[in-house]
């Protein structure tokens, strides 16, 4: 490389720098969930969240990708036809009257909450673990990462810390609660980007092909340019 091209390459690199995101990771990282545990998250979603929230871009049939059989989808998840979207039964206007705001569709909620503080999954994981009682709020609940949230803590029975009954039967240990919430977060992350796994698989193939192709193209280019750079070396004494 001539000094000029080195300098130019440095400049090009500097062009990238301002596009890096700076900012600390303030939210704890949501645990990785193995793919087969996402079924648990899907069931949790259908049982606990779908009364209020839709997943209006996801079809019931798509849940087969998580390993559910058709029968399980119909029975466990009380689904309609596989081609149907996972929508809410309640009308938006009614919901608005009940809660003040209509609960938003959650298809993209994980993608929409990414920030310099953490990924969208990190945010959701924190959100579902940050409810606390607040008598001043109309629902009786407040949330540390979403203050004055209009959503009640629907999982309150499961969380030991928020279940007022000492040793209640359905309360989970803090570790088990976190683990269950993580499966729900994993499921919603999947719902936000259902082709992510396929995308990465295809990506590896494409990148591998381009690596080989670039190497071949470089060899070909060198072969052709030998006649020209060879001449120049003779003329200028090698530069």
């Amino acid at each position: 490389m001539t000094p000029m091209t080195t300098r130019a390459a440095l400049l090009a690199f500097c062009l990238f720098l301002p596009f890096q995101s700076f900012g600390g990771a303030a939210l704890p990282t949501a645990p990785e969930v193995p793919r087969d545990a996402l079924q648990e998250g899907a069931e949790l979603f259908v049982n606990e969240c779908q009364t209020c929230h839709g997943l209006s871009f996801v079809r019931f049939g798509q849940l087969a990708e998580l390993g559910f059989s058709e029968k399980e989808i119909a029975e466990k998840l009380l689904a309609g036809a596989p081609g149907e979207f996972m929508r809410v039964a309640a009308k938006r206007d009614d919901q608005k009257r009940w809660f003040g705001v209509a609960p938003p569709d959650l298809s993209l909620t994980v993608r929409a909450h990414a920030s310099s503080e953490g990924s969208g999954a990190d945010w959701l994981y924190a959100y579902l673990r940050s409810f606390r009682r607040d008598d001043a709020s109309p629902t009786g609940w407040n949330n540390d990462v979403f203050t004055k949230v209009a959503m009640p803590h629907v999982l309150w029975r499961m969380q030991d810390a928020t279940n007022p009954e000492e040793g209640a039967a359905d309360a989970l240990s803090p570790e088990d609660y976190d683990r269950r919430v993580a499966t729900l977060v994993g499921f919603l992350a999947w719902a936000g980007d259902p082709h992510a796994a396929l995308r990465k698989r295809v990506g590896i193939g494409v990148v591998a092909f381009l690596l080989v192709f670039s190497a071949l193209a470089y060899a070909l280019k060198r072969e052709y340019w030998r006649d020209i750079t060879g001449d120049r070396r003779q003329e200028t004494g090698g530069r």
Partner: protein
Amino acid sequence: MNLKTMRAGKYRSNGGFFGDCIEWLDARLPLSAFWRKHFSEYLVPKNLNFWYFFGSIALVVLLMQIVTGIFLAMSYQPDATPNADGIPVAFASVEYIMRDVNWGWLIRTTHSTGASAFFFVVYLHIFRCMLYGSYRKPRELLWIVGVVIFYALMAEAFTGYVLPWGQMSFWAAQVITDLASAFPFFGTALADWVRGDFSVGGATLGRFFALHVVALPLALILLVVLHLVALREVGSNNPDGFEAQKRVNVEGTLLDGVSFHPYYTVKEVFALSVFLLVFFSLVFFAPEGGGYFLETENFLPADPLKTPEYIKPLWYFTPFYSMLRAMTRPLLGVDAKLLGVLAMNGAVGVLVFLPWLDRAPVRSIRHRGPVFKVMLSLFVASFLTLGFLGAKPPEYVLWGAIPGAPIARAATFFYYFYFLAMPWWSKIDLCAQETQAA
């Protein structure tokens, strides 16, 4: 010209079917003549470096945007009304492409990442011109066509950004169309005319769709053809800035030139392949580009009742957005908003005059003196600073100590100073003699 010379150089088949087809076509179209004129016998300076790849890469990206765009338009619906789930139909149609259309996710992310790649490549392409003085005589028109392409590209990117009808799409459209109202007398009427309504809505989406898929791509294609025709007329400049087209031997061939094919075709295939490697790594492994290619807030459907905390454009517009916001006080009776609009548009417009602002006796940075090198470095620094600050809220404080707003104003000032004072500083610079041999 007699018939015999007209027939000369026509393709002769060796008897195979494929060869026969080409001979048949070549007898009826100037195919081999075109190939010779523009590829195999087109002479290009032999010292072109990697900066010269970005033009042809931009051409490939344009093609890629058109092809992916056609497939997107098959399923996209420019309809701002809410569906049964309260989500705008346009927003839902993009998600439909991402989820239900076969390979739709690949088509869409290639298109959205392609927009960022286009600007990245074009910024480097323009910067190359500034490094090597490619805009100077006889390439003024080539350069001016380039500036017009850049305007068209910005309009294309902006209209496209609005189509998914997410929160940022909607509010960016609101902010940008509202800029028209900064003009006195006819401003408000102009803004309403651009939007097709008193505020951004379904009418705006419809016209932006028409502009994005028909009018602007057509304009871009025509402009790029004009760009290339002009390039073929004057020939490429080169990193040493000498007039390669003037050094010819007795047969009239360039002494410092090599034929475009095969020398530059093989080189460009390699460059393109490296570009695609980086590009598709992003498409497959970071399609959101950390919020720089697809903004997180644009995963929320447009809500006219909920203004986002702060509205910012995608990274490639942030330097200009910074200039818009940098104007906070009226000057000479012109109000601040109008000043901002003028500063933002003028930043691209001033490029048109660059061929006449530059008074240095040589073209390339390799032979220019320290003044140019310092000025260009400061120019790059201020442009990047503007870009950085434009992505932040206006009250942003650098390193927790330096308020961003006065920095943005200073950088805007320097951006203009670079161009407007160029006739002076480019002349006093100590330049070396241009060398001839590559």
